[in-house]
């Protein structure tokens, strides 16, 4: 479960989290199932938060693609 959790995109994780909440609300699960879903939900919420921190906030400008390799450099917008 952990493995395919890491592969989940932010949206998928959030959608799954909401689905879990709905299922728990429905109340037709066994206690064991509820606990399992709860654990998964907690992991999903953590995963979502991690996803928010994943990008680095880089700003680059594309210079070109040569032999399938992308060349970029840091972008410095000219001052007003």
């Amino acid at each position, binding site marked *: 479960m952990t493995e395919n959790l890491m592969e989940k995109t*932010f949206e998928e994780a*959030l959608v799954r989290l909401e689905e879990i909440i709905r299922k728990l609300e429905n*109340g037709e699960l066994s206690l064991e199932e509820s606990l399992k879903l709860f654990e998964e939900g907690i992991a999903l*919420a953590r995963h979502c938060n991690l996803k928010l921190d994943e*990008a680095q906030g880089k*700003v680059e400008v*594309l210079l070109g693609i040569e032999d399938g390799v*992308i060349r970029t450099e840091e972008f410095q917008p000219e001052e007003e």
Partner: protein
Amino acid sequence: MILAKIFTVSQVTYYLKNLLEKDQRLQNIWITGEISNFTRHSSGHMYFTLKDQSSRLRAVMFKGENQWLKFQPHDGLEVLVCGRIAVYQKNGEYQLYVDLMEAAGLGSLYLAYEQLKNRLAQEGLFDQAKKKPLPQLAQKIGVITSPTGAAVRDIIKILHRRHPRVDILLIPAQVQGEVAPQSLVEAIQLAGRLRELDLLIIGRGGGSAEELWAFNDEGVARAIASCPIPVISGVGHETDFTIADLVADLRAPTPSGAAELAVPEIKELRKKIMMSAKNLKFSFFRACERKRAQLLRLTTHPALKRPERWLLSRRQQVDEVKEELLRYIQTTLEKKRKLLLVELGKLDALSPLSTLARGYSICYKEEDGALVRDASEVNPGEKVKIILSRGQLLCMVEEAKKEVMG
């Protein structure tokens, strides 16, 4: 006989041709009229008639000229054309050779825009069903715009204000002028090949309709439509609606607006996750509560909760049986008692006590309590006890007589 000079058809036609083509007024003339009998020959040349209420003028616009037309001429269209009047020698007809054509009224650019819009709409390029969903959280956003100018600065500023950690890749493009459409198409296709991008912003700041025109280019529209990455357009101002806007997956009113729509505010998102986690805990708690309530229902079931009650009822049963038994015993006893009384009655008749009551008495030796039946059993001087019907006498024997009477 006067011999008049005789001309050939060609000579007359040639003469007229020269006459007309020498007239400078006819060599660069603006004419307005309505197009009719429009045909486009496979060679690419356009043939049509310009007409008004009372007259007609044959016209041709060669491929060399008409390739620059932004709109598609058609019958019934009011146009303003510029060209020259000349004679087509083969047919001996004069006609208008059109160099420039503008749509009258609406304007050519507008007409071209409308026509392209209708065509692409019919092809289904604007269909809502074709719109790709935007990622809720883009990690890396491609921005296609001019690397100079306010638009790119605004986009970067707003993206990072909302989501400080989103990665931005600027793909520079010319956004106005002759080369702009091609430049935009190349940038879009390039972006489409970069698998790492999960969202694309295409835009430029405000300008005149002509300056924004590249965003009404058919090639640009098709590049956006076939781009595998979701595209947000933000071209010009609120009031500008370009073809690129229509074909994009989401239209923003301005470049800044595109940046606003591209990423969620990170604070909002964290709040949303927090709420979800809260809801999760809450709903899990409730699920547990439901189980607990279920358990409680079962454990408080009378059978489990008050075992002594069960015992009591059993005890009551025992009591009832006991009582019944007692009643049975009592009635039996009563019957026996009555029987006994009857027997006792009979017995009473045989009792010595009643014999005593009749005046008889019983005599015992005082010494050993032996019943005295024969006078010879006692000697004078011995003490005897005589039981009477009421009381007894302790007597000293004076004499023992053998006779019964006397």
